[in-house]
């Protein structure tokens, strides 16, 4: 999965990739105080390419603890769970499910919007690939708005940036690849070499996406994220981070 973190104060996009194993569950947002949890489970491509197995988000789980509601989105179905009851739609439906002021709206074969108390919305996009493609598989993207709706103790691969860290980027210079300049970034007491690059934002164009310039942090975001990315692997889809 490709991560793009938009830092409002610094007006910068910072991005990184996480290369983990199919089946691993990565914590994206963990905020026990506000009772919100977002985890993403990885799936693998059908086969390796250049000896490497690409991984994607195949399932995303939302848990709204104070409401006792879970929303599970896979590349096949969208399910709202309330205790032992569950109500589901499929990606071929257009419609919504409403429960305890949580609105799950599905747009056929395209997106799911989860709106909580009409205050915050999470967006999940479906990327459908050709069924018989030898390598690619359907996968999901998730967009979480920059908001102060979370508590200050929110964490996770994305959640930790809700309280924006101080970032300074300077000494822009030609990189090893002439088309990709490099720079130095100071964040969280670390000095990192970052590379200028382009990532895709698919919210407005789900097939081709819109180019987003960002400073790319290497080694799975090492130095930019707290700890190591493996610290964010959780045992199941609705588990909060232990102690960030």
């Amino acid at each position, binding site marked *: 999965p490709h991560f793009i973190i938009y830092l409002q104060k610094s007006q910068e996009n910072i991005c990184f990739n996480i290369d983990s194993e199919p089946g691993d569950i990565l914590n994206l947002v963990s905020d026990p105080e506000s009772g919100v949890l977002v985890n993403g489970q990885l799936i693998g491509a059908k086969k390796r390419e250049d000896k490497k197995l690409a991984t994607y988000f195949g399932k995303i789980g939302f848990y709204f603890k104070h409401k006792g509601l879970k929303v599970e989105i896979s590349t096949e179905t969208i399910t*709202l769970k*309330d*205790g*032992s*009851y*569950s*109500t*589901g*739609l*499929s990606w*071929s*439906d*257009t*419609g*919504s*499910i*409403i*429960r305890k002021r949580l609105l799950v709206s599905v747009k*056929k074969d395209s997106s799911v919007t989860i709106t909580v108390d009409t205050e915050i919305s999470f967006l999940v996009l479906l990327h459908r690939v050709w069924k018989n493609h030898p390598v690619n598989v359907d996968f999901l993207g998730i967009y979480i708005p920059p908001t102060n709706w979370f508590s200050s103790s929110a964490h996770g691969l994305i959640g930790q940036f809700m309280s924006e860290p101080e970032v300074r980027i300077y000494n822009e210079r030609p990189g090893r690849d002439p088309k990709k300049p490099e720079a130095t970034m100071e964040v969280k007491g670390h000095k990192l070499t970052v590379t200028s690059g382009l990532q895709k934002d698919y919210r407005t164009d789900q097939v081709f996406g819109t180019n987003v310039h960002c400073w790319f942090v290497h080694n799975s975001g090492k130095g930019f994220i707290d700890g190591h990315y493996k610290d964010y692997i959780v045992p199941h889809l609705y588990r909060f981070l232990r102690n960030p």
Partner: protein
Amino acid sequence: STLNDEDSGESVEGDDKISIYSYKVRSTITSRLVNTMIQSKVENKAKHSQNLVFDVQIPKGAFIHNFTMNINGITFTSSIRERSAARQQYAQARAKGKAAGIVRSSALDTENFKAELNVPGGMKVQFEIHYQEAIRRKLGSYEYIIPLQPGRLAKHLEVDVRIIEPQGLRYVHVPNSLGDHFAGITTISKGEKKAHVSFKPTVAQQRKCPTCSATAVDGNFVVMYDVQREPKAGELEIFNGYFIHYFAPENLDPLPKNILFVIDVSGSMWGLKMKQTVEAMKTILGDLRPEDQFSIVDFNHNVRSWRDDLVAATPSQTEDAKKYIQEIHPTGGTNINEALLRAIFILKEASNLKMLDPNSVSMIVLVSDGDPTVGELKLTTIQKNVKQNIPEDVSLFSLGIGFDVDYDFLERLAHENHGMAQRIFGSQETSSQMKKFYNQVSTPLLKKVEINYPQGSVSDVTQNSFHNYFGGSEIVVAGKVDSNNVQHLQSLITATAANAEIVLETLADVEGLDEFLKKEEHADPKFTEKLWAYLTINQLMAERNLAPTAALKRNITRSILQMSLDHHIVTPFTAMLIENPEGDERMLADSPKDQKRGCCSGTLSVAPNNLDKSIPSWAKPTPTSERLLSARQAPTMSAIKQHINTVDND
């Protein structure tokens, strides 16, 4: 020519020298609309004149729309007229030695179309009838039943069914309903959206035994299938200016139920009926889910209940309830009014005490085999009492056992309270029929279902709000589409599921099916219009049944009559006039009214001036009746006082 003489060698003549040359059933199913054609070519090979009979069972709810009879090249054709007009025209030119009619059959859910004529030796006749029906989804599948009783061996016997479902076929299954004798003869070929079923037994295969002359073909030929159900919002099919919306969502958690079983234990239930009812109830109670709540009210001239309040369906409680019901000894009168009011009271109490899950579904299931004989006897008063006391969100389902029960009353009671009614046999099959009926309502998946369409783009929409949606069934809404000004039709479905409110949208292209159906030679191009018409007529009939005033009833009758004439179908307000080309020989067939009393099938009568040996054995007019007996149901009981005070086990 009517009959070609290509002979398959084997003789099929009966002792009476009557021979069926061919008996063919051709059906096409276009998106649940079934067109059935039954054709029979018969020959009187005797030297003397004889009666040739064409007797076909027509499923209740089917609409007959065409019948022809070809006698040695002379074709009798049919037309649909307003009932009394048809009678007058029939009286002007009664065909001699010929009679036709639609009569009640002993089977619960069919009627018989009979045509009979006396023909000299050597005469060949071809009968052909066409009828249509909209098949409803029950217990997860569409069951298309063809009553197949040729009555004797046929040189060419053939059943040919084609299915065309734009939604895509999930499976097609043909059970061995005619018996193991015919195992392996039926062929099925199934594509993604089409299927073809063929059944062509040879004469040898038709014989009951290798040397028998009697046919083993006597029963129902059944085709079962279901369709693909990808989007939860259902399938919106638009064609020819009409739309049909099929809604049958799956993988939803069942809603919890609050169910009251109200069981008649009067004297007439003694014996087989009670034994079968107990057997069914034991299975039904065992199938209840832990989150369901229930109780049992049993009544004869008194009203008792297993528990005076709703109880959670735990294993121990259901076991106790089974014991209770097994120990009941049917005796005494029938107090339906008090029993229903008790059941309603129990539900209301539970609701007042906040014992009901807000997302649950409340229902009453009434099982009775007779009319009230104790307490309130007037059926309309009972209906009013129930209507005034029953909460709006409670549905009432009624099961009538046998023919002694006033089924119209049970049907009104159910329809007026968001339920449905069914008549079942009072025999060995009572238990299985009760379980089958219960299974249709045992799994509520949604409640308060409403389907809406943008204003101005549709009109004449059938019922579009439904109290409950039960798993295995299907909600159908139909209407007209302004195809000239509308390119896409949107629909919005709102409903309550087990743990959430649901909103579902669909968008369909008004020309979405044109391409597919243009290539389908077998598809009925008017399938959407006919489905809309039959759905509308059935709903008008139900409304007419509940019409509070005579004026409203007259208006509804007029609408039904007009639609029946527009669509050329036999309904209780139209009749089929059959006449020869010159119009000087006529026969009449109209549908029977449901019998309040009487257990036997109706009879067909022949014009009295034909009182000679040619009167059909099953049609003896009563000696006292000098008046002309036209082809209608048996003499009704209307001459007898409407209400008889019988003691229950008379």
